[in-house]
């Protein structure tokens, strides 16, 4: 009787540990996700105009794309809305359009619902697509850790290769006090046919609102 009990406890403990490992491995961390040089997977996500959008069918993404994980509720994202719009206006006709993706679960953060995304785009006159990552698979695969979080991609053949990961610039509070425009520098270097000299930065942002496991 005693032997069976011990074996059962061991088996249950082992299974629990295995499950924990599987769950932990599934959770994106700052060290997982894309870095410069990785091929970025394409997506097929719903845009605020009701159509589905992918990188492959984005007519403006002739040289690459500026993928930005961002959302409605986060004060850091809000502080960057005008600058994200400006990036799109500057680069969409040079082959590098902005594609904004909301990675958050609207059940956790109601401000980030599809309807609210449509409203924000209207209120702030967004010129770029604003897609909802409804399964959060894209955010997880890319390794988005916060909002906003930028991935500059360069088109190589039919692949989109990651060339820069990180922050938009070095001052969320004051655009006039910015000294380093990381995304602009990266895209300018790509347009000039150069490699990106600073291909990774970090910033503070709001955590992604991951769906809770059932």
């Amino acid at each position, binding site marked *: 009787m005693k032997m069976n009990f011990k074996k059962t406890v061991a088996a249950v403990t082992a299974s629990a540990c295995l499950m924990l490992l599987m769950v932990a491995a599934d959770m994106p*961390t*700052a*060290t997982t996700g894309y870095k410069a040089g990785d091929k970025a997977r394409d997506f097929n996500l719903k845009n605020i105009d009701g159509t589905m959008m992918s990188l492959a069918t984005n007519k403006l993404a002739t040289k690459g794309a500026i993928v930005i994980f961002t959302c409605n509720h986060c*004060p850091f994202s809000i*502080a960057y809305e005008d600058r994200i719009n400006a990036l799109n206006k500057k680069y969409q006709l040079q082959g590098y359009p902005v594609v904004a993706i909301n990675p958050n679960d609207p059940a956790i953060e109601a401000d980030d619902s599809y309807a609210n995304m449509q409203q924000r785009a209207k209120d702030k006159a967004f010129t770029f697509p604003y897609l909802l990552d409804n399964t959060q698979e894209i955010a997880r695969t890319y390794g988005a*850790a*916060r909002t906003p979080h930028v991935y500059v991609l360069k088109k190589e053949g039919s692949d989109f290769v990651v060339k820069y990961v*990180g*922050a938009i610039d*070095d*001052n*969320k*509070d*004051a655009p006039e*006090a910015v*000294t*380093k425009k990381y995304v602009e520098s990266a895209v300018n270097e790509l347009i000039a046919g150069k490699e990106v000299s600073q291909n990774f*930065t*970090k*910033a*503070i*942002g*709001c*955590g*992604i609102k991951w769906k809770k496991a059932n």
Partner: protein
Amino acid sequence: MLKHLFWIMLFLSLAGKSTAQTVQVVKFDALDALLKSSSDTTYVINFWATWCKPCVHELPGFCKMDSMYKGQKIKLILISMDFVKDVHSHLEPFLKQKKMMNTVWLLNDPDYNAWIDKVDPSWGGSLPATLVFNNKMKKRTFHEEELTFEELNNTVKPYITAH
């Protein structure tokens, strides 16, 4: 008359104490000095903001821990990442409303890329985040997530009982 004056003065000084909580606005070098010190104090550094829901949710646990270990060599510093323009309009009223008298700094150092890794190289930059360290013990723990009181206490306990 003098007796009345005494009570009035006492009341005024106590009233002043209970409403005052001014926040120190700092640059990263203030935290850097602690990170580099050889002190045997255990520091619990919590990065939060008034608008960050999970941050606000876990704050009571930090306040509870702070009072529980009063008198021990442990110091809690709540580092707010609120916008500096909101110090008087949002942050201080928030602290007053919650009756929080813990040490609160507002970190006004927007070149985040220059210092995030100094807090912890694994930090992806999201809030809340908590760093516990004791340089004399050569011990540090970092969490990039909301902590329950139990999780926080279990993190902190090994730093206390080892003394």
